């Protein structure tokens, strides 16, 4: 059950606008995530990064604009349909569910498995077999993300950094073609950051998926990203490679002008 899908289709965001009660959260945002690349979306707090993710995963319906994954138009689909197309995500604030790491990871296998209420209740051989196969794959992914030792530990008992990684592993369990990571290293200490960065680098190399990354840690963005889109006040103010973006005056203005994120910008430049 090793997943090595052919190169994922491009994720194409075109003119996405989101308006909440008169407030413009995203204003005509466009960018394209090329197949198999890491695309970072950066910007000061409140720039619309999480809103953007919520549109991509189907939690918000944009006022205007389209999101295409290959031929599929995502903006009209419910979140579970988007998940079934191979788009997985993590959350900025940890959103794990009850139970062990194994339970959370098996939730990630939900869209890939079939067993319904009747088959599971009667423990039909097909359901038992399916569960066993998916559990084996979930264990592999736990090993890959460095959670192998905690596979049967209740998530609530894990330290912050590990819980954050549970989310990452759960998303990977979906065998995604596109992985949306919302601040994967926020709140982590230096060692945990390094470890997560390694994990992301590895999975990208091994699984060949596209990654969309929202992150404040400029160091991480510079090391991982192939392309960067900068959001400010809901607008995409710059696109380019990390190096181009770092020199872009608009970006400097967005970061330095608002006063937030100066530290991280400096860290990135260092």
């Amino acid at each position, binding site marked *: 059950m090793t997943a090595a899908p052919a190169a994922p289709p491009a994720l194409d965001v075109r003119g996405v606008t989101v308006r909440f009660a008169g407030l413009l959260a995203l204003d005509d945002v466009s960018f394209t995530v090329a197949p198999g690349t890491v695309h970072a979306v950066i910007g000061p707090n409140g720039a619309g990064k999480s809103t953007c993710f919520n549109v991509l995963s189907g939690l918000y319906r944009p006022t205007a604009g389209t999101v295409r994954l290959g031929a599929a138009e995502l903006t009209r689909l419910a*979140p*579970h349909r988007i998940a079934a197309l191979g788009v*997985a995500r993590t959350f900025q604030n940890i959103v794990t*569910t*009850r139970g062990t790491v194994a*339970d959370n990871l098996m939730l990630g296998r939900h869209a890939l498995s079939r067993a319904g209420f009747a088959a599971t209740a009667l423990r039909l051989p097909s*359901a038992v077999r399916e569960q066993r196969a998916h559990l084996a794959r979930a264990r592999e992914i736990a090993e890959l993300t460095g959670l192998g030792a905690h596979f*049967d*530990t209740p998530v*609530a008992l894990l330290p912050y950094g590990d819980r954050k990684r549970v989310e990452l592993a759960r998303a990977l369990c979906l065998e995604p073609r596109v992985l949306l990571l919302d601040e994967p290293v926020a709140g982590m200490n230096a060692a945990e950051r390094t470890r997560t960065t390694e994990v992301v680098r590895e999975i990208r190399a091994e699984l060949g998926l596209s990654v969309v990354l929202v992150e404040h840690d400029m160091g991480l963005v510079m090391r991982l990203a192939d392309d960067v889109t900068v959001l400010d006040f809901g607008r995409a103010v710059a696109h380019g490679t990390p190096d181009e973006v770092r020199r872009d005056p608009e970006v400097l203005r967005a970061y330095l002008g608002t006063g937030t994120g100066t530290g991280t910008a400096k860290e990135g430049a260092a």
Partner: protein
Amino acid sequence: MSDPRSVLRRRAALLPPVLLLCALPFYLDAFWLRIGLFSMAAAVGAVGLGLLSGTAGQLSLGHAFFLAVGAYGYVWLAGEPGPGLPPAVAAVLAVLLAGAAGGLFSPVAGRVKGIYLGVATLALVFLGHHVLLTADSVTGGFNGRSVPPLEVGGFAFADSGPELTVLGVPFGAEERLWYLGLALFALTWFTARGLLRGRPGRALAALSDSETAASVMGVHVARYRSAAFVVSSMYAGLAGVLLALSFRRVVPDYFSLALSVDYLAMIVIGGLGSVAGASAGAVFVTALPLLMTRYADQLPLVATPGSGGGAIGPTEASRYLYGAAIVVILLRAPDGLHGLARRAGARLRRRRRATGPPGTGAAPIPAAGTDPTDPTDPAARAKEHTP
């Protein structure tokens, strides 16, 4: 998915309680058997409500309605007036009917969340009660209907039919129904635990913790909410059939809001989200008033039934007790009886581990699919018992 030895050990651990339950009819008189029978019926229903309210986090105060659908469905389908089907067929159809009734409500049950569903399901109880009173030709109105005995292949679960004596013990209705109840409870136990540990159970638990996380992981939230409601209704229907057979008469007033609240009390007292907990809670809530009635004259502060004049009768006393039990349990031990037992077990183990060789605590432990009653398995415990 766990190794065969642990499976075997778990199965072996189940053997003594099963043997004990099978042997009881040879030693207990009808009074105790009836308590057991009502408890088993209640446990079937409580497990169903536990799936809905405990696991999926959807509060329901409409459980009494689905119990009624099962009970009246059986009576009508097997009886006269009614199609007069073979009782076994009628029983199966009654369970399906309860599921269908749950399905009819699913446009509401799939979209109304959590505690709000509790208010919405009030409608089922009151509208259902009204229908039971009004649709005389089917339900027999206020006085209800008598319940045709269940017969399978010429064997009647009643006092009728050929006499039966096993090992010198005459098998009357109570003894026969006991084994029926036991079989249905076993079926409930088997299926419900399969559900909880399988894909649907995980999806339901996840959507009650975070609808957002569940949906982006591919769970069709509304469909799963509806399905939980339907499955829970089917367990209620099964419990209703068993209750009807045990009572031998069904009356509308039994299926009131108070009954729904009783079932909620069962799963809260037992510990939300666990099959064993729901069963323990069912026994507690069912047996308590019956025992209090029987022993009222020996209990302090409790008056014998019918002494009137505002005295505390056995029914009131037990209601005080389990009303208070809900409050105290949620204040002190939100995971109920089952959680208390679990923590006591964990404390014992810690003590044992402290004296054992270092490092044994980190031994690899089988994961999902292991037995939650197995005290060596924190994985399954955390999964089934977190409210």
